């Protein structure tokens, strides 16, 4: 039993390391090669946990190889567009000026229902509202709406920015200062000290301090 415990721990640590090494893309929407490596790694990881008679190398070695191949192939794809096209394919336009490209749908083996469903997911119920819809290499659909159907932004409405230009970020999290966020918002430790003094708090009493590039902030005290 102890052997299984140790083996599982080792495989778990290895998979965490390999997934971290392969990067964040592995956790979001996957490209074909990333999907393949993720499926293979999950299967390989279970081999040496399920079968104690097999040597650990029968899991470790293939997992390392797949992680290495995945990184090297993605590095090759960054350098070479042809390789990228071979490995990941290329985006395909399925809708132009409100007209669905039936040939593209056939090539992708997409049904009309798939397209309409994907459009509905983007709050579009009429394909004629779309200038262009593209199926990306990871299978997601990107849509560009017609000018007259698109929602206006602040620039279109000529609204002046009177508030923060940066998003609200945590400056202190559970008593720990996040100096990068502070400096990005134009604040320093002196400002933080002032805020703590104003609220008669020590750093360890702060659960969360959020703020932006204005003088506004939100402070949550830690419950004792």
């Amino acid at each position, binding site marked *: 039993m102890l052997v299984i415990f140790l083996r599982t721990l080792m495989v778990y640590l290895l998979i965490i390391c390999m997934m971290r*090494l392969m*990067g964040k893309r592995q956790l979001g929407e996957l490209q074909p090669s990333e999907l393949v490596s993720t499926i293979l790694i999950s299967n390989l990881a279970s081999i040496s946990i399920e079968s*104690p*008679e*097999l*040597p*650990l*190398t029968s899991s470790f*070695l293939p997992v*390392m*190889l797949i*992680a*290495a*191949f995945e*990184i*090297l192939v993605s*590095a090759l794809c960054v350098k070479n567009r042809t390789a990228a096209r071979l490995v990941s394919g290329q985006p395909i336009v399925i809708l132009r000026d409100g007209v669905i490209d039936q040939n593209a749908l056939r090539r992708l083996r997409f049904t009309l229902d798939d397209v309409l469903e994907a459009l509905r997911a983007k709050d579009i119920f009429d394909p004629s509202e779309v200038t262009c819809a593209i199926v990306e290499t990871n299978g997601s659909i990107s849509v560009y709406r017609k000018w007259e159907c698109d929602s206006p932004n602040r620039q279109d409405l000529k609204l002046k920015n009177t508030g923060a230009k940066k998003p609200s970020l945590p400056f202190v999290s559970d008593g720990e200062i996040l100096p990068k966020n502070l400096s990005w918002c134009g604040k320093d430790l002196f400002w933080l000290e002032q805020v703590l003094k104003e609220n008669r708090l020590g750093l360890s009493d702060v659960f969360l301090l959020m703020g932006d590039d204005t003088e506004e902030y939100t402070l949550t005290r830690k419950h004792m």
Partner: protein
Amino acid sequence: MKRVGIAWALLLFAIAVAGLGSWTVHDSFHRLDTQLINAEVFCSQQDYNKALQISQQANTDFSHREHLLALFLRRDDLRQLQSGLAALPSYASPEYENDFLFEINQTRAQLANIRHLFFSLL
């Protein structure tokens, strides 16, 4: 791009481990097979003492390499091979000559089978 360097290092490490595994299995099995053939020859020549010595030597060599082989081969296969080898010295006498030859052939067949499973691509 730092990750690419790590990926190359992982690839080289995996190749090195695979190479070490192949060499260890090939070398150990080749040595064992030669010892078993020699034991068979000495037994056929009625030199049972020499056959006994060689089969004992095969057992010692195998036990020395077993921990390394366990990194690359299934434990149940190794256990079978070990029990096959362990039985050999007890048959190295005139009255059990046929059993000795039979056990040697069986162990060699086991060796060949494990080697085939380890090295065959398909």
